[in-house]
């Protein structure tokens, strides 16, 4: 899938959306949106009025046109939001072009079958160069897989049987080796299918909050319907003849068409924004829940710290010159391709040691890390250089171990680091004991900018909890450096689940990320469970979101998008309702001016004529939808700040602004349409 964000008014999306705006006029579709349905009925009524009423035709025709525009603009907004999703869905669909799979029969024979016929539990064999037909778990073999079709990431990933990297996704391509895959999804239910469905908005269901808002808007619509309908008898008493066209115009201006027209677009766009961040939400409900999260459970490794530790300091043992330690350290790490090993070489080089090249040392024998020795190193001639965890090296050294080194090891542990001890033994002397050279300080590197980010979360009332398998000391030190509020050390998967339950019992919503099979229960329990795409199928099934980039830090962005979605709804609802004040001031005096010229002072905007006033309000009401489409699709600007500050800010912009803005808008429209002699 393409990760590029479509520009807001990309013609490829706008053109079909224009067509869709008309298709959506189908009453069966419209009735799902009570506000716009009433608007459409109003448009139909005024259209009929063109032929029936005795009012100036030009006026009725224009009102009717703008009412139709209002409906079409709302449909357009929705179609735009859907269109952006569809563009992404199409990209996905291309990868689903007919694939042929080789299914393994019960007798071990292979049959070529269409991908669509694969059922859950079938086993297929996939060779290098082939596309994996459907979702499943690797049950035999290992392979490099190109998942760019799904993630947009071009670097191939390893998929192998067993462990946490066993899941493969339909539509991705095997680059090397052969794997056996057990299919985990029936046709139409694969990950790809769900993604397409989701981004297209085809299976979109209203989220709880959206339902509540729809009820509010529907109720307001009914109330304003009563207001406008009762004006007819009031008019009869007052001997004011209210025309049907004007009453419909008033009704449409009063009912919350702005938010009514943009509501579904906001929801679709919210999911779309997640997709652009390469996160797939399994439901809109999950996106909403993300906005409500109170506690973020963050795995230390990968989320808070860079995945690997780095050497940051060397501490020579007493009597050992620094230079010797540096030499020994870099020699023992030369062949160590782990990030830790490389970081030792780099640091030693920085400290001024001439770094040897492997090919300069033909006589060297490299000793790889084994589970038995738990050390790695190099034999250079008769000298054995070794580095390893304190306990292992102690065992290797045997008898004497310098007290100062022990002290240093303790200190590093307390600071949250990992001490590696370097020792060497001259094999030329049969009985010589190994000498301790010193300690390398390996440190977890906390990702930049996190502390700042967590601080902002704290301000918003979201607590961050770091989860780590490290011991208390280490965990506490890293937690402090990263700026998280709390940590769970020596955590086992079941501890994670217990923590989530505990928080939820306290009424808090919890979000977490996970990838392993043993994360699945916790992911399922969490209110927002984000599974890493690299993770197991079980994890992906358990969570309600999948991060295609497998970047645990993204949890933070997910929360922000959830909040942004809710804020956008609230802001536009407030704006919509606040708009009514100005519309009253435009329309009500206009309705009465003919019978009661004395009410002229109520025309505070000094609109030119009653008809121009009413038409201006209707035009404003329609145009504001178009103007707000970008806001609905992009979401209101998100700033992490306490609820009080956010409320003040948004009330000022959308509440007070919503009262004031239409006064200017309607006045300008009135000036334009009268100077152009539309009325």
């Amino acid at each position, binding site marked *: 899938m393409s990760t590029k964000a479509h520009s807001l008014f990309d013609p490829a999306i706008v053109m079909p959306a224009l067509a869709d705006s008309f298709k959506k006029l189908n009453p069966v579709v419209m009735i799902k949106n009570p506000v716009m349905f009433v608007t459409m009925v109003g448009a139909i009524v005024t259209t009929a009025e063109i032929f029936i009423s005795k009012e100036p035709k030009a006026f009725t025709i224009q009102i009717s046109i703008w009412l139709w525009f209002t409906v079409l603009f709302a449909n357009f907004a929705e179609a735009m939001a859907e269109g952006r999703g569809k563009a992404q869905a199409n990209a996905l669909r291309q990868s689903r072009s007919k694939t042929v799979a080789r299914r393994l029969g019960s007798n071990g024979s292979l049959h070529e079958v269409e991908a669509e016929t694969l059922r859950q539990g079938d086993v297929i064999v996939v060779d290098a160069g082939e596309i994996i037909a459907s979702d499943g778990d690797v049950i035999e073999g290992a392979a490099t897989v190109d998942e760019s079709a799904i993630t947009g990431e071009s670097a191939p990933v390893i998929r192998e049987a067993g462990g946490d990297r066993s899941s493969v996704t339909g539509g991705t391509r095997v680059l090397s080796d052969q794997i056996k895959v057990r299919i985990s999804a029936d046709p139409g239910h694969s990950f790809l299918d769900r993604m397409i469905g989701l981004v297209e908005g085809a299976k979109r269901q209203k989220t709880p909050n959206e339902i*509540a808002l729809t009820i509010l808007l529907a109720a307001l619509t009914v109330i304003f319907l009563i*207001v406008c309908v009762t004006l007819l008898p009031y008019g009869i008493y007052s001997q004011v003849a209210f025309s049907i066209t004007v009453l419909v115009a008033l009704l449409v201006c*009063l009912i919350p068409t702005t938010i009514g027209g943009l509501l579904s677009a906001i929801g679709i766009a919210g999911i779309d924004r997640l997709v652009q961040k390469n996160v797939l939400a399994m439901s809109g409900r999950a996106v909403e829940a993300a906005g409500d999260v*109170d506690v973020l459970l963050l795995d230390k490794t990968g989320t808070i710290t860079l995945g690997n530790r780095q050497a940051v300091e060397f501490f020579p043992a007493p009597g050992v010159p620094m230079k010797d330690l540096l030499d020994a350290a870099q020699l023992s790490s030369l062949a160590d391709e782990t990030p830790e090993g490389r970081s030792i070489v780099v640091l030693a080089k920085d400290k001024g040691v001439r770094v040897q090249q492997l090919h300069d040392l033909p006589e060297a024998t490299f000793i790889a890390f084994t589970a038995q020795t738990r050390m790695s190193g190099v034999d250079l001639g008769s000298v054995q250089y070794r580095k390893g965890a304190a306990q292992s090296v102690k065992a290797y050294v045997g008898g004497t171990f310098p007290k100062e080194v022990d002290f240093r090891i303790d200190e590093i542990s307390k600071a949250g680091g990992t001490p590696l001890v370097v020792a060497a033994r001259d094999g030329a002397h049969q009985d010589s004991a190994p000498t301790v050279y010193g300690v390398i300080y390996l440190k977890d590197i906390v990702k930049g900018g996190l502390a700042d980010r967590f601080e902002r979360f704290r301000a918003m009332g979201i*607590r961050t909890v770091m989860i780590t398998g490290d011991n208390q000391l280490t965990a506490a030190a890293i937690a402090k450096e990263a700026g998280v509020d709390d940590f769970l050390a020596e955590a086992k998967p079941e501890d994670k689940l217990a923590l989530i339950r505990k928080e939820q019992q306290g009424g808090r919503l919890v979000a977490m990320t996970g990838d392993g099979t043993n994360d699945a229960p916790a992911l399922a329990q969490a209110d927002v469970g984000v599974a890493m795409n690299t993770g197991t199928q079980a994890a992906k099934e358990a969570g309600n979101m999948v991060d295609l980039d497998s970047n645990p830090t993204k949890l933070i962005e997910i929360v922000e998008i959830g909040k942004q979605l809710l804020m956008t709804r609230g802001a536009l609802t407030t704006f919509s309702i606040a708009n009514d004040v100005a519309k009253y001031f435009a329309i009500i005096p206009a309705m009465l001016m003919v019978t009661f010229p004395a009410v002229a002072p109520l025309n505070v905007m000094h609109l030119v004529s009653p008809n121009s006033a009413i038409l201006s309000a209707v035009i404003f009401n329609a145009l504001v939808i178009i103007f707000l489409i970008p806001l609905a699709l992009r979401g209101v600007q*998100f700033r992490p700040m306490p609820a*009080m500050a956010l409320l003040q800010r948004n009330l000022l912009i959308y509440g007070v602004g919503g009262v004031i803005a239409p006064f200017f808008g309607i006045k300008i429209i009135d000036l334009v349409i009268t100077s152009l002699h539309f009325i």
Partner: protein
Amino acid sequence: MNAALGWIQLALFLGLVLLITKPLGLYLVQVLDSRGRTWLDPLLGPIERLTYRLCGVDPHREQSWKGYTVSMLIFSLFTMLVTYTLLRLQGMLPLNPQGFSSVADHLAFNTAASFTTNTNWQSYSGESTMSYLSQMVALASQNFFSAAVGIAIAAALVRGIARHSAQTIGNFWTDLVRTIYYLLLPICVVFAVFLISQGMIQNFKGYDAAALTEKETVQVPKTDASGAQVKDAKGNTVMVSQVVDTQTIPEGPMASQVAIKMLGTNGGGFTNANAAHPFENPTPFSNLIQLLSIFAIPSALTYYLGRMVKSSGHGWSVWAAMAILFVGAFLVCWHYEAAGNPILTQLGVDPADGNMEGKEVRFGVFNSALFATVTTDASCGAVNSMHDSFTPLGGLIPLFNIELGEVVFGGVGAGLYGMLVFVIVAVFIAGLMVGRTPEYLGKKIQSFEVKMSMLVLLVLAMDILGFTAWASVSDWGKAGLNNNGPHGFSEMLYAYSSVTGNNGSAFAGLTASTYWYDTTLAIGMLIGRFLMIIPIMAIAGSLAAKKLVPAGPGSFPVSGGTFTFLLIGTVLLVGALNFLPALTLGPVVEHFLMWSGKLF
């Protein structure tokens, strides 16, 4: 008139309201707790326990919202029947020194509905219709009952907000009995004696006949033997001279009834002129205390709310929103009443006096405008001046206050629960703007609460606008009008607003004691009371059952100035805008026509 003294009186009044809010609120906490302690326990405790024993009520056994609501509905229906029956049988019952006949069916229905719903709309004139027994038992009983029911409902809703993961919201019978025994009765006894000290009557003797110093000759319609008016050939009423040499001075147990009518925000006058009557509101001092008694319990309930939900700040924010809406509306009313009627100024009336039509000298423009604002902010409906004769915009204020839903302090209990509906709507709309599912004090506001809240607003709008629409195009509707033109429309709009809001004040020129008006107004009252309470109780039950989300910096702030501002905005935008077109056709148009000198 002295504007400076006006400002001092306003500050004094608001200061006194503020002063009693906390102590009375704290007292309410005890009263509305089945195990609460008050200093009246030694006296009233035994009576309270005896009452429970006789009724077979376990005071500590709580009810679900449905159980609570059913108890309340059955009690209200039962007492409404009692009132109706007593009025219908008035002619046969004792304590009727003037020998008033039984009350007609439509009027008895209207009056029973009126007093049961705390409306106290009066289609009758008290001193010429109701016996002492009717006043004291049929009507005053409902003054106590309907007030206690309102307070009970508010308490149940507050419990629903304060509790979490709970299935019950209190016991209706306990709330009813405790409210009457510990809150209403003790205050009323003191209050009533104070009122007597100011000149209010309290006796059981018959009306007195005072021999007039100056006999008066008046023109009255000539009546035939059957009592019907005689018309001449042109259809005009034939008038005859009649010498009036005595003034019949009404008597009766007034003070005891007026005390509860004010304290319980009932508002049904002992006399037709209500609190404008010199007996019913003898002095400016009695006027001040009566005003205070209207706001006392509603204001204290905001403190009760804050206390119960453990956020005094929230209680005070709601109080502040009410206070601001009160002062704002009052200033408009005062301004326009003080400005007077330009049509009369034209005729030579001193414009410095303001509009005195329908006002008493002892109260003047200021205290009349203040009373009108207070009585309609709350659902009291007692009047010390005739709203019908206010200037158009001065009279718009009481109408506007009622149409807001009487949430500015409001009726006892009803004001708070009405305001809490707006709080829920405000929290829902603006709560989204902080990027979370809206939460009110840790409770998520979801579709059920929104549905019920909007139902309340919908019922309010439909009841007022629908009935007014019907009346305004019906012959029976227009037949009752005392004024023509926009003011006549205002009279109808005011009537249905008043009954829907259970206020009871009127643009009293409207002759409502007709079959159609009595019946539609009574239905309007019952809808406005019970169709509002039921959804509110549903909200109480739903909120009580919800889990509590702990408060934090991300929680929606429901205390402080921003929330107060938000609440005011919501009340005005969601509550008032619906009525703007109707208000425009009535008072606003009339205002402009008045300034152009148009007469109807």
